[in-house]
């Protein structure tokens, strides 16, 4: 059995090695794959804060991913058409600047998480899953019908948005940006988990009664976790949109919410690097098996099934010999 720290270090090193190797071998597409894995991992790291520490099985995290995506899409669209977004009382200029887009994405998804959390945290268990799913569907269908931004067809952004000092169209530079963002999200999860807040949240998942009895409010702890979680997933959504230079309602789809959960379960629920391993495996399978068969999801499903049945701690649980938190 291997210590979790070593596994974490190895995973990050591997994550860096692949694109560096690809750079040396002049394989830009592999760099793009690594970027995709980083961004999906970051979205799942966000969900892992709510799900893994707080025990909140949200089947609606695509809402935040999609909001981040559309924050990018809408701002960049207005920038590329040179027409301000007219809200009647206020005209918002578009933007091609990633920092501006990111701040918008984080703010919008945090606010959405606050509202959705306030309503859905009244419920637990299956009802919580269902109500978050319902919010996801609301956003999905709204985006389909919102023809100003492409409706069902989505919205293409022709040039990737900029970041001061970088040429974001160079694959390895954009990878560096996304990987750094992933590391920041991991750092946040790590510090949060050990902090007083994380300790209380983790206890609120296991025994809310106990948390109340020592004078803390488990609902408030979970609500804040949901907001932080949504904000991280929202930022990942903005990066995902920039990676594809395209946003569409599929970013809001319940399948995406489900995939984020699957990534976490495969890697290990509540484990720092769980989502990273899950995302790397997911993108690798998608690429290698997807090239061979249209039914690669079946294989993903088989892996998921084996893990759920035999390895509750996910791949990290297998490697460390330690089960993770129960959700």
């Amino acid at each position, binding site marked *: 059995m291997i210590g979790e720290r070593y596994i974490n270090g190895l995973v990050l090193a591997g994550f860096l090695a692949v694109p560096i190797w690809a750079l040396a071998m002049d394989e830009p597409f592999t760099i793009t794959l690594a970027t995709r894995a980083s961004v999906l991992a970051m979205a799942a790291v966000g969900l892992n804060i709510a799900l893994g520490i707080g025990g909140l099985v949200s089947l609606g995290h695509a809402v935040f991913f999609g909001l981040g995506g559309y924050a990018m899409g809408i701002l960049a669209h207005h920038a590329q058409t040179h027409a301000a977004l007219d809200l009647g009382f206020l005209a918002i200029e578009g933007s091609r600047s990633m920092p501006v887009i990111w701040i918008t994405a984080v703010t919008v998804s945090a606010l959405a998480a606050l509202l959705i959390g306030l309503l859905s945290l009244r419920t637990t268990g299956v009802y919580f899953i269902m109500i978050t799913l319902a919010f996801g569907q609301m956003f999905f269908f709204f985006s389909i019908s919102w023809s100003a931004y492409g409706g069902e067809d989505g919205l293409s952004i022709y040039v990737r948005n900029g970041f001061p000092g970088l040429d974001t169209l160079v694959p390895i530079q954009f990878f560096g940006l996304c990987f750094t963002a992933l590391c920041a999200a991991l750092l946040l999860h790590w*510090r*949060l988990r*050990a*902090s*007083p*807040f*994380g*300790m*209380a949240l*983790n*206890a609120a998942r*296991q*025994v809310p*009664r*106990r*948390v*109340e*009895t*020592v*004078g*803390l*409010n488990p609902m408030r*702890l979970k609500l*804040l976790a949901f907001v932080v979680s949504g904000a991280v997933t929202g930022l990942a959504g903005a990066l995902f949109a920039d990676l594809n230079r395209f946003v569409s309602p599929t970013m809001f789809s319940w399948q995406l919410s489900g995939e984020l959960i699957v990534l976490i379960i495969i890697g290990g629920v509540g484990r720092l690097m769980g989502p990273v391993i899950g995302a790397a495996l997911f993108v690798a399978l998608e690429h290698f098996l997807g090239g061979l068969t249209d039914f690669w999801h079946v294989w993903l499903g088989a892996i998921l099934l084996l893990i759920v049945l035999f390895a509750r701690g996910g791949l990290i649980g297998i490697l460390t010999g330690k089960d993770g*938190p*129960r959700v």
Partner: protein
Amino acid sequence: MSDVILSTRNLSRSFGALKATRNISIDLRAGEIHAVIGPNGAGKSTLIEQISGGLRSDSGTVHLVGRDVSALSTQARARAGLGRTFQISALAMEDTVLENALLGALGQSGRPWRFWRAAGEDRDLRARATAALERVGLAGVADQVTASLSHGQRRQLEVAVALTLSPRAFVMDEPMAGLGAEGSRVMTDFLDGLRGEAPILLVEHDMDAVFALADRISVLVYGQVIATGTVAEIRVSREVKEAYLGEGA
């Protein structure tokens, strides 16, 4: 009476047609252990839940240190000074023993909104948590996962978490449950010394412990207090014998 720390007045609670508690008025005075005894299903745990805020009362009031806390949430009552333990241990089983104690210390500090520094590195929290663990004799297992503790150790940890709160009054639901003779004796000695810090409302089935510890006893039968008195009074009360202690006791 100025030395009453915790009091209930006419507390009642029904579950459907079942009247689990009926017009319960109990005082807990400074420095005393007030035992609540009664047969299974008498309503003891229901009373504890009503006092600590886990169950809404149909009627009646709860006062803590002169303040009406009847409308307050569980968390607010804890912050007002109520230290409660559960009949069935309610601990974060995946976490270490120390983390469970730290949680209590964190609740006592009232500042859970800290996100960066590790909880275990906070000196004040740590000092408070380890002091409580030492007092109940769990310092040696502080770093073990709580799920690995014996039943008796879990009962001790329940008490330790309540200690971290430095409450004005303890409310304990069967702290000796399942402890065995030696464990009960140790817990009895411990609670004996604790009453000087804060009075204890003690629900307990272990009659040896109750008779050894209690300054006063209230007897609960079918949701009603049928007698309150000193150990000597309760021992000789015919009413109590008939209703509860039976011929054998």
